[in-house]
Structures are given as C-alpha cells and as structure tokens.
C-alpha cells in the first residue's frame, strides 16, 4: 500500500482535453492543465463558470463529458471504481459547508477515516484526532456536535477530517466563503502552514480575491462565455500584466464600466 512520496514539481493531476457540464449544458470545453506536487493551485472565475463542477470532476463525483484526467497517476476519466478507490484513499476534500456528519461529534467525524482505513488502536486514533484538531486550532470542540459550532469552526473541522490520513492531495471548495475577514485570514494562514508543513498539494476553488493573493502559487481562470481557461499563472503577475479585460477586471476588482 505504501507508495513513494511525491517529489515536488512532478505533476499530481494531469487534465487533457476535458469537457465538463451536465447533459447538454456544457460549462467548459477542451481544457488542459497540470497541477504540480506541493503547490497551492487555485481554480477561479465568476459565478456559474463551472469551478465547482471542475472540482467535482477531479474528485470523481461528476463524470466528465470528454477528455482524460490522471490523478496521482490513476486515469479516473473512465469512471473505473478500482482507479477511483486507489485515488480516494490518498485525497482529502473540504466541502463548502464542511460536510460534517451531523449525528457525530467533531472528534468522531475526524476519527472516521482513520477507523475506517487503518487498524490503529482507539487510543492512538484519539491522540491523532486531538493532534489534527489542534492543527486547525479546534482542540476545544472535540466533544461538541456540528450543530453546536459556528460556520468557520465547521470548515476547520472539515479540514481536520480532510487531513486525517495525511493525504498528499487536498481539495478545498470555497474554504473562506461566507466567513468574516479575520476568520477567513486565519483559515488562509492555516492552509498555508499545512501546505508548507506537510508538503501536500492543494487544489482550491474560490473567488475571494484576498484569499487568492495570499495562498495561490498558481491559478487558472475559467470564463463562462469563453467556456474554458482564459488565463493561467501566478495571480499577482496576472493582475498586473494580463491584457485580457476579463482577467484584469476580476483581479483588480473592477467592473467593465470602470475601465478607463
């Protein structure tokens, strides 16, 4: 089961000629990109451009309409259960609202992947759960139910659960959306420290500009009308140099009418 660790800079996700959408409604057509080990990779774009759909395709929840996707060396575009199973144990996903199971305490939620996928003793699992919760600064909530904690805490608890098996690849869906600026900043710093500390690759979907400039090493910019990637690279560079008005307006927080 043990696989060699990922070398920084090697591709973790390889997407070629991907078309995604639902039935006749195509959201993006024929897009290709690479995500490299160790980087924080942000998928961004305005509402309705297919960011979340792309994320769901990458984690195998939505089948692609066409194209090939290799995640951690496995081809998941054919929808094979065996390939997906191999990938699922090595990825962690933070869902928009945390995705915590409401009937279990926060600690039990974090323990779930460990008790399911490892044969560690209950005592060790409990110790690890406390450590994971301490990593997201939530050790006080171990016995609380998800309904007893705030939205920001739910996201952090979801992150602790995503980190449970120390996955080399983490997917975060809108991690800072709907949080106050301070909590959002704290979560970003946490994501950065986990990325630096564990060396895990992070794929983040967001449209929070502050967050993008803080955490992203590289971004792709999806556009609804262009039905694909209209820019790719370091967001700070794109902000200052992109000639595409859609990209520079977005990154400079301007509307089209404000272009002087």
């Amino acid at each position, binding site marked *: 089961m043990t696989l060699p*660790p990922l070398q920084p800079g090697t591709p973790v996700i390889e997407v070629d000629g991907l078309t995604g959408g639902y039935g006749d409604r195509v959201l993006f057509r024929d897009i290709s990109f690479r995500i490299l080990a160790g980087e924080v990779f942000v998928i961004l774009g305005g509402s309705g451009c297919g960011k979340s759909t792309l994320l769901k395709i990458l984690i195998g929840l939505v089948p692609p309409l066409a194209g090939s996707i290799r995640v951690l060396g496995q081809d998941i575009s054919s929808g094979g259960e065996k390939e997906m199973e191999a990938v699922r144990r090595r990825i962690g996903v933070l869902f928009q609202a945390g995705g915590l199971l409401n009937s279990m305490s926060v600690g039990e939620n974090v323990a779930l992947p460990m008790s399911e996928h490892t044969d*560690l003793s209950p005592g060790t699992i409990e110790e690890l759960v*406390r450590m994971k919760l*301490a990593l997201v600064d939530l050790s006080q909530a171990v016995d609380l139910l998800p*309904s007893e904690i705030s939205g920001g805490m739910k996201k952090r608890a979801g992150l602790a659960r995503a980190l449970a098996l120390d996955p080399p690849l983490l997917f975060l869906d809108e991690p800072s959306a709907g949080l106050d600026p301070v909590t959002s900043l704290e979560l970003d710093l946490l994501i950065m420290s986990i990325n630096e500390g*564990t060396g895990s690759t992070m794929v983040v979907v967001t449209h929070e500009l502050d967050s993008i400039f803080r955490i992203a090493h590289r971004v792709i910019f999806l556009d609804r009308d262009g039905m694909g990637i209209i820019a790719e690279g370091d967001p700070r560079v794109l902000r200052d140099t992109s000639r595409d008005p859609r990209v520079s307006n977005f990154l400079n927080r301007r509307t089209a009418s404000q272009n002087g």
Partner: protein
Amino acid sequence: MSRNESSDKGYGLSSEGSPGGAAVLSLSGRLTLASLEAFRREASALIDALSPSSLSLELSGLSSLDSAGALALIRLQAEASQRGIPVAVAGNSEQAGRLLALVEERTKRGKDPLPAAEHLGIFEEIGVNVVSLLRGVVDEISFQGELLFDTIRGCLNPRSVRWRDVLFYMRRAGVNGLPIVGLISFLLGFIIAFMSSLQLKQFGANLFVADLVAIAVIRELGPIMTAILVAGRSGSAFAAEIGTMQVNEEVDALATMGFDPMLFLSVPKLLAMLAILPILTIYADLLGILGGLVIGVTALDLTFRSYMAETHSVLSATVIFASLIKTVAFAVLIATVGCQRGFRVQGGADAVGAAATSAVVTAIFLIIIADSVFAVILQYLGI
C-alpha cells in the same frame, strides 16, 4: 550497534551507543500513520533497554514523514525529557523540520475540550419528555385556534388569501390522490363483501352484503381511510415543505416583508383540505360500494338493480351528511398538524424528516381519536 529494518513496516530504526551512555537513534524510510504504533513500541523499548544519558534522533535517512509520524517523534522527545534524558534532533530535511515545528506548536497551544451536552438521568429524561409532550399539546391547540381564526379572517377578506395556492394544493392533495384513494376503497369494499358473503351465504342472506358494505364504508371506512391516506400523502408534505422553508429562512423572509406566514402558507393548505377531503371521501364511498357490487353481482347472484336498491334502503341523507361532517374535522386536523410540525422545525435537514414523520403519526392518531368521539356522539344522537 543493533539494526532493525523491515520493508513491510515502512520505516527502519537502528540504535547506536551503550547502555547508560549517549545513544543515537537513526531513522530511515517512511514514518507515517501506517507504521505509527509499531514505531512507538520499538522506540520505547529501545530507550528502556539503553536508558541513555542523552539521546540523539538522526532523521537524515527518512524519505517521508507525515503529521502522525511527527507527532510520534514529538511524543518520544517529551517522553525522554520526562525521564531526564536530553534529546537532540538532527539531520531532518527542511520539510520535516517545518512539519515538526507546526505539529509541536499547535499541539502545545491546544485548548481543553469544552463539555459536550450532558446526558440526563432516566427520571430527568422522563420528566423532560412529559413536559415537552404537554407543551406540544398546548402548542397544537393554540396553533389550531390561530389557524382557524386566520382562516375565518381570510374568508372575510378574500383578497388576502392566495387562491392560486388553494387550487394548487387541491390538485396535489385531491386530484393526484384519486388513483390511490380509489384503488384502496374499491379493494376495501371488495374484501368486506367477499369475506362477509362466505358467512351470509350459509343463511341465504346474500342481499345483506349490500347493507353491510354500505354501512361500513360510508359510516367508518370511507372517511377514515381517506383521511389516513391524505394525512400520509399531504400532511407529511405540508410539514416537510414548511420545515424546509423554515430551515432556509424563507419563513423569516416572508415575515420581514410584512406577510403573515400563517395566512401565506397555512390558510391555503387548510382551505384546500376542507374542499377536497369531503369530495375525496364521497369518491371513496362510491368506489367502496362498487367493490361490494362486483362481488354481489359476480359471486352472489344479485342483480345490479337489487344490490343498489338494498344499498339505497339502508342509507339516508343524515348518515352521509354525518360522515362528511367527520371529514371536515379530519381536514382541519391534517392541515393544522402538518403546518404546525413544519413551523416547529429548528436546525437542519434531519429536523425536517422528523417533522414529516411526526406530522403523519400525530395526524393519524388524532384522526382515530376524533373518529371515536364522533362514533359516541352520533350514537347518542341516534344517527
């Protein structure tokens, strides 16, 4: 120097040094979640055996370290320090150093857990449940009063009622319910006639099957079966619909826009129920009699005319009217219980499911109670 490495556990651990002196533990391979427990046992045993004066952890051979492995190293350090053995970590990669620092810093500033919701003793639990049950009855009665008051107010001022919603719920609860209500009533009449015909045939009392079916279906089974089916189909839907709106803050939105949620959401449902339940009951009565008729004509050698004449002779307008009065009461119960359970929803999706279940169970319970009360009253009135 001892050496111990196996490929299946992922990591290698070797120790250097003599008991009582300075010791070096060299790690290699992968120290991760999977090898965590084996490593801790082995390392503790080594320290116990050597009980060194100082310990050095040599990490240069580690190819991979995850947060679980980092925690194990930190705990090993803490364990040794507690026994008065100074520990030095050396040879770690930059990445491993960052991870060790992160885990150490975060676990150190961990806070004590907040207490979970406390569990009640058995007597407290019983007490709390009884009080909440009584409170539920009071809530239900006051809600019913409020809804009836609002409905009357709505009827006096018809423009305030959303008549399109009334028609929508009439279609959903009434028209869409026709197949299932019809099928069940037909089969009920059919079964009653069939079962009783086996007995009555022996006495040559074939014709009285018609009386039996007519009385059973019109007085009791028609109204009660229809009410139970409608409670299951529509009462639960009312609770789920209003409950979901409650969760999504739609009810709050209505209230802040100046709408009375009661008038907006509940009154159309109650009016629709009041309109369709009597009609559905008459329809169920007819199909129940039809079910009896099929048996009468095919198995008992009765003619259509004689069966209908016999049915007609045992029924009176008063009996049919009394059964329809019952359905009005049932309609009020189904609508109010459904809406009240919906408005009472707090929390998330699971509360909506619980509200829908509770709406059906409570409504059926109250329907049966109301039916018994009607049975006694009608008996005394001689109907």
